[in-house]
């Protein structure tokens, strides 16, 4: 049906990755510069929405076979798990830990458990936004 939208579809194929990479950047940069899980998640969702606009729902579902409700669950478990992991180390709930590591490819890097929490936020935002849009979109 949308086969005639060649320009949109072709452009989407390129722009999608740019938006997606920007979203990932925003997500990782969040701890030091503006951004974070929430905005990152929203931007990722908007990249996916662009796919939905250019192609139809069935195609997108085939290409990205995610169940977004499950993603919400994973995000919540990740966030809660990060928060409660501190209990295992005998420190108060929600105490984060961070340190600097020398990683192969990245060199000297700061690794922070807040990042895992933020990843939870990111997944919930993506899952929730996509859930809302898909359920409204597929409704007739």
């Amino acid at each position, binding site marked *: 049906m949308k086969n005639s939208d060649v320009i949109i579809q072709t452009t989407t194929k390129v722009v999608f990755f740019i938006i997606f990479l920007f979203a990932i950047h925003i997500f990782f940069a969040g*701890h030091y510069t503006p951004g974070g899980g929430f905005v990152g998640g929203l931007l990722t969702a908007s990249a996916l929405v662009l796919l939905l606009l250019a192609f139809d729902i069935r195609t997108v579902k085939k290409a990205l076979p995610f169940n977004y409700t499950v993603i919400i669950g994973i995000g919540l478990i990740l966030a809660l798990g990060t928060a409660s992991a501190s209990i295992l180390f005998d420190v108060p709930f929600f105490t984060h830990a961070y340190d600097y590591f020398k990683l192969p490819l990245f060199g000297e890097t700061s690794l922070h458990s807040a990042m895992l929490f933020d990843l939870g*936020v990111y997944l919930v935002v993506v899952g929730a936004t996509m859930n*809302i849009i898909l359920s409204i979109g597929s409704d007739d």
Partner: protein
Amino acid sequence: MISVLLLFAPVIAALFVPFLANRLRGIHTGWFVLAVPVLLFIYYLGFLPQVKDGGVHIGELAWIPSYGITLTSYIDGLSLLFSLLITGIGSLVVLYSIFYLDKEKERLGNFYVYLLMFMTAMLGVVQSDNMIALYGFWELTSISSFLLIGYWYTRDKSRFGALKSMLITVFGGLMMLGGFVLLYIMGGTFSVRELVSMAPELAEHSLFTWALVLLLLGAFTKSAQFPFYIWLPDAMEAPTPVSAYLHSATMVKAGLYLVARFTPIFAASEIWVWLVTSIGVLTLFWGSFFAVKQTDLKGILAFSTVSQLGLIMSLLGAAAAAFHVDGAAETMFKYAGFAAIFHLVNHAAFKGSLFMIAGIVDHETGTRDIRKLGGLMALMPVTFTIALVGSLSMAGLPPFGGFLSKELFLTGMLSLGELDLFAPASWGTVLLVVAWIASVFTFIYSFYFVLRTFTGKHKPDLLPKSAHEAPAGMLVSPAVLGLIVVAIFFVPNFIGDWIVKPAVAAVQPFMYNSPADVDVHVAAWHGHVTPELMMTIGIVIAGLVLYWLLPKWQGLYRAFPEYLTLNKFYDSSMYFAESGMNRLSRSYMDGQIRSYLIYMFSGIVIIVLGSMIAKDAFQVSFEGTAPIGPAEVGLLLVLVASVVTTLVARKRLTAIIALGAAGYVVALLFVTFKAPDLALTQLVIETVSVALYLLAFYHLPKMSRHDEKRKFRVGNALIAAAVGLMMALLAMSSASQKALPSISQYYKDTVYSEAGGGNIVNVILVDYRGFDTLFEIAVLSIAAIGILGLIRLRLTRKGDSGEKQ
């Protein structure tokens, strides 16, 4: 402690009743139940020698020690008298009920469980020294009485009577609780005997009168005093054993018990004396006057009970009056207290037997309507004899106990005539005259009751059953009570010494130190003609004449307009309470969100502005505010323009776009106020929400997609302006007076050293205050799943699941 546990013996026995009623169907459950009151009666008889000499027995069991609430069994003369009444008449009533209630047709399990529950409650009321425990048992009597009145719950009238008695007695019970609480505030203890010991200090307290009135409300409602007596005639829908037990001999005397028990505390008050006496005499007259109107046997007895309770109440008032007389123990004032207790015993005996007689007549003829009955004397000779004994005792004739108590009553009333305290001296005389007239009516209805039922012409065709004598078992209980009535006449001083005097000593401790001090000797003939005897002769003559002329003047009752009766008043007040409440809630609960929002917003404005005015919190200072740059001014102008556009837009689409514009301006404001994270999020969220608005707009039904302008409503505009003004004032005032410095400096200092981050906003979100974020993402998840559920699961009708069919 054993005596406290024994209070609960009936209720514990009640636990086994359903088992006995269901498994052992061959034997009437009542036979098992009978053992409980009989054993308790024997147990309480054992206290007689101790109490006769003025001794008391105290059993205590801690219930809530931290609040000073204990379960007490305080046995002195008064509570022992009541305990004996409860268990003694309880035994007879259970025996009677065995023959009255059919073991095949009736739900005996229910009946005896309720009855045993009532027995515990009543024993608890009379033996509790602790006011809170007393209140608990008191309400349990209301509840069990409610259950017993509604025993035949398939009848409308039973349910109506049960509800009415419940509403009135529970109202009184709650008032009484208020009185108890006030007494606790005044005296600092829940114990009645400790309060009695500090009575003189309590009388000085400013709450004293309040406690007095509240307590009396409880006593008057329970004891069916004017104007609260109206529940008692309707409670006659209960099975007759219940009427005999609860509504003549025990529960209705709980109010008398309460008045008697608290007399030592409140007797110092003139209000108490005159309130108790006047209400008592009024009830006495009113009940006896209207008893002659009744056509139902139990109706006559109900009004008669009301009247007799009024009599005892007025005597208790006179007993309290003795407190104000110097050397009362030597004058005729000493008789009132004795008369009250003596008549209480008498009344329990003859009224219990009369109710049982009414039940027998009902049981054997199938009707209680006095117009259909008559000429049963030859058919039911034993029943007639017992009825005659009870009625003549009620009328106050020799040789029955009622004669003696009537004489004592007249003495008590004469003593009031001499009392010239607090009120004009003639007031006591008025009470005496009214009491005398009431006694005449008592005489008339006693004769009316017994003669209309048993003499005259037998009308077999009007009766549902052919009348015959009742089975022997049914006659045992009324016969025993009848014998007691006669025995009281012949040995009044035996009962006086053993039972009445210890009780009088408990009611009037300000006069007597021990029961031996109570110097009252009852005699049927005093050796000379007393004024009381003259009055009794007058009562008999006037009563006989009026009874003879009864057909001539009974039409008088029909002249009394129906709409002026207290029942009519009760019914219409219930009706108005219900419909009025309905109308009230319908007047503001109109089901429109718009109205509710108006209530909420105006409420908020009134509360906030009101408290700001009350606290004088308005303050506007521009000290320390940042300078306003051209960018902000420009953005705000755009913001105002888009808000105004949203408000006045003719088309919904315009409003949506204007709203989006406002959102983007806010994002730009975030940029100028250096909040990049907020600006990013606001931009994306605004885009999403505008898209969702458009979606909703697109799906509006064609019919209502009218593009006309919204109607202007002055009220809405005023409230909106008020809310805006309030928020502006609030924001300015709170910004102008900051009590504490902000915590943000701490975040700035530690964001890198403690949290290993650079973006303060994000570090606050995920680290310092990650807890909030955790639940915000939970909110987001719930919203998403909610939308999923709303759209996927379309439950159009109950049990109709989803669209897949």
